[in-house]
């Protein structure tokens, strides 16, 4: 029973971390219909910048704010410089460019910071809480992760559903040409989508770094799981992304806890396939198949 509780809590925490990055992927997919393979590497880079700021003596929260701002600019820059020129070409080209960016950023971080892993400070204590007389695998930092990701999700939802900015962003994503004809400055909104995704990714980096070995590659695997989660969730829905991510987190955790840690990625794969076979457009998609 204790094992089950701990494994479940571990799965939820991991899932929340995947969710933060999955939200970033969803933001970009909604804006530009592009799968950004460099999302994890961008988050890695900003987390290293945060690491430098912390080393220079900046306080944790100030460093976090600075990093989120830098990530905003980085996201915007990537869209303007690398993605914009590819508009209207083969849909695989942006995929290759983001893979290229991933490689460049990892090379750059390795050259500057070295390839070895290091520790990264958490916002709060990472030792497990005691409830009654039982110790559980859930810490103050895990609570922080949970709250931060939920706030991110609700914020994303509110932006899309309740603000005119969100309306314009959705419109730009679904139909750039019609939106432009209605006076929407689509280019800026696509840039904004990438910038906001950069922010979500950077937050994910700050949340993941203390729980894993912090190195230029520390986001690679998170990206794969976040990607799986976003696909399960339907790629366009923030709620779907979070639900998918928690599902993937739990699947990984149960498989490694009860079957064997080496099979964990298979757990993620199996739920992805089950979901996609039942709903080829993911769980929370708009069901556009009627159009065809």
């Amino acid at each position, binding site marked *: 029973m204790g094992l089950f509780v701990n494994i479940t809590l571990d799965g939820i925490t991991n899932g929340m971390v995947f969710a933060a990055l999955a939200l970033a992927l969803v933001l970009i997919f909604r804006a530009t219909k592009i799968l950004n393979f460099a999302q994890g590497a961008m988050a890695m880079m900003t987390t290293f910048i945060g690491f430098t700021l912390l080393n220079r003596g900046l306080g944790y929260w100030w460093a976090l704010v600075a990093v989120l701002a830098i990530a905003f600019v980085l996201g915007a820059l990537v869209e303007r410089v690398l993605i914009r020129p590819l508009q209207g070409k083969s849909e695989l080209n942006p995929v290759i460019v983001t893979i290229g960016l991933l490689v460049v950023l990892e090379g750059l971080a390795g050259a500057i910071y070295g390839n070895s892993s290091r520790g990264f400070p958490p916002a709060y204590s990472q030792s497990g809480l005691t409830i009654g007389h039982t110790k559980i695998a859930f810490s103050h930092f895990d609570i922080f992760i949970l709250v931060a990701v939920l706030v991110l999700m609700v914020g994303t939802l509110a932006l899309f559903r309740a603000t*005119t900015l969100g*309306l*314009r962003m*959705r*419109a730009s994503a*679904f*139909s750039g*040409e*019609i*939106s*432009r*004809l*209605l*006076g*929407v*400055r*689509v280019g800026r909104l696509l840039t904004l989508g990438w910038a906001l995704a950069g922010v979500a990714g950077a937050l994910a980096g700050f949340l993941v770094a203390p729980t894993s070995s912090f190195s230029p590659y520390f986001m690679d695997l998170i990206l794969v799981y976040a990607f799986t989660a976003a696909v399960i969730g339907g790629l366009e829905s923030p709620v779907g992304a979070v639900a998918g991510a928690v599902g993937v987190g739990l699947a990984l955790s149960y498989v490694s806890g009860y079957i064997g840690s080496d099979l964990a990625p298979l757990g993620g794969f199996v739920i992805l396939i089950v979901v996609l076979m039942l709903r080829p457009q993911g769980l929370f998609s*708009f069901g*556009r198949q*009627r*159009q065809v």
Partner: protein
Amino acid sequence: MLEVQELSVSYGAVHALTAVTFAATPGAITAVLGANGAGKTTLLRSISGLVKTQSGSIRFNGQELVGKTVEGIARCGVAHVPEGRGIIEELTVEENLRLATLWCLGRRERERAIEETFALFPRLTGFRRRHASILSGGERQMLVIGRALISRPQLLLLDEPSLGLAPLVTAGLMALLRDHTVGTDMTVVLVEQNARSALSVSQRAVVLNLGEVVVNDAADVVAADSNLRHHYLGF
């Protein structure tokens, strides 16, 4: 007042428009007619900035439009209803309308304009919060016309609004269009394959053939010229 002068557009080696010159006046509907591939859609797309022009000028109320961005032109009061009912299916009906109000109307005016549009097309009211993808062809056309009018444009560009609609619905739409144009300061350019119904509501007509203007005259004169009708308009 829209003045197009010596406008040329080409796609690679293909000349889509060659030295097109015409004018459209406020308070009137100017029909642009011609066979498939005559360059009608290209003409509208170059006015709204979607197509890069090669030479010539497009002036609206004295402002040069060539060189402006699509959204910049839209914000000059130009509403373009593209071919194939340009609604955004993933947004709700109300969101489609609201989107068109965002840059031109204040917060309070916005809500009133939306209510007025629903009053104008009561059939849309029931679908207010539904995705626009579930609308029928006629309903979609109501939505795009309503959306075009909601921003109170000074220049309305309509591309084949009757395509695929039942004759009765088309007639209703055309009548509505005339009511909203004649006697106002709005300039309307109506591109149609269905020349007969277009000419019935238009005041002027421009006939294009292979990218060149072959006729530019009053609508009733064009409608009366059976030779012209036979050659270019197919009725």
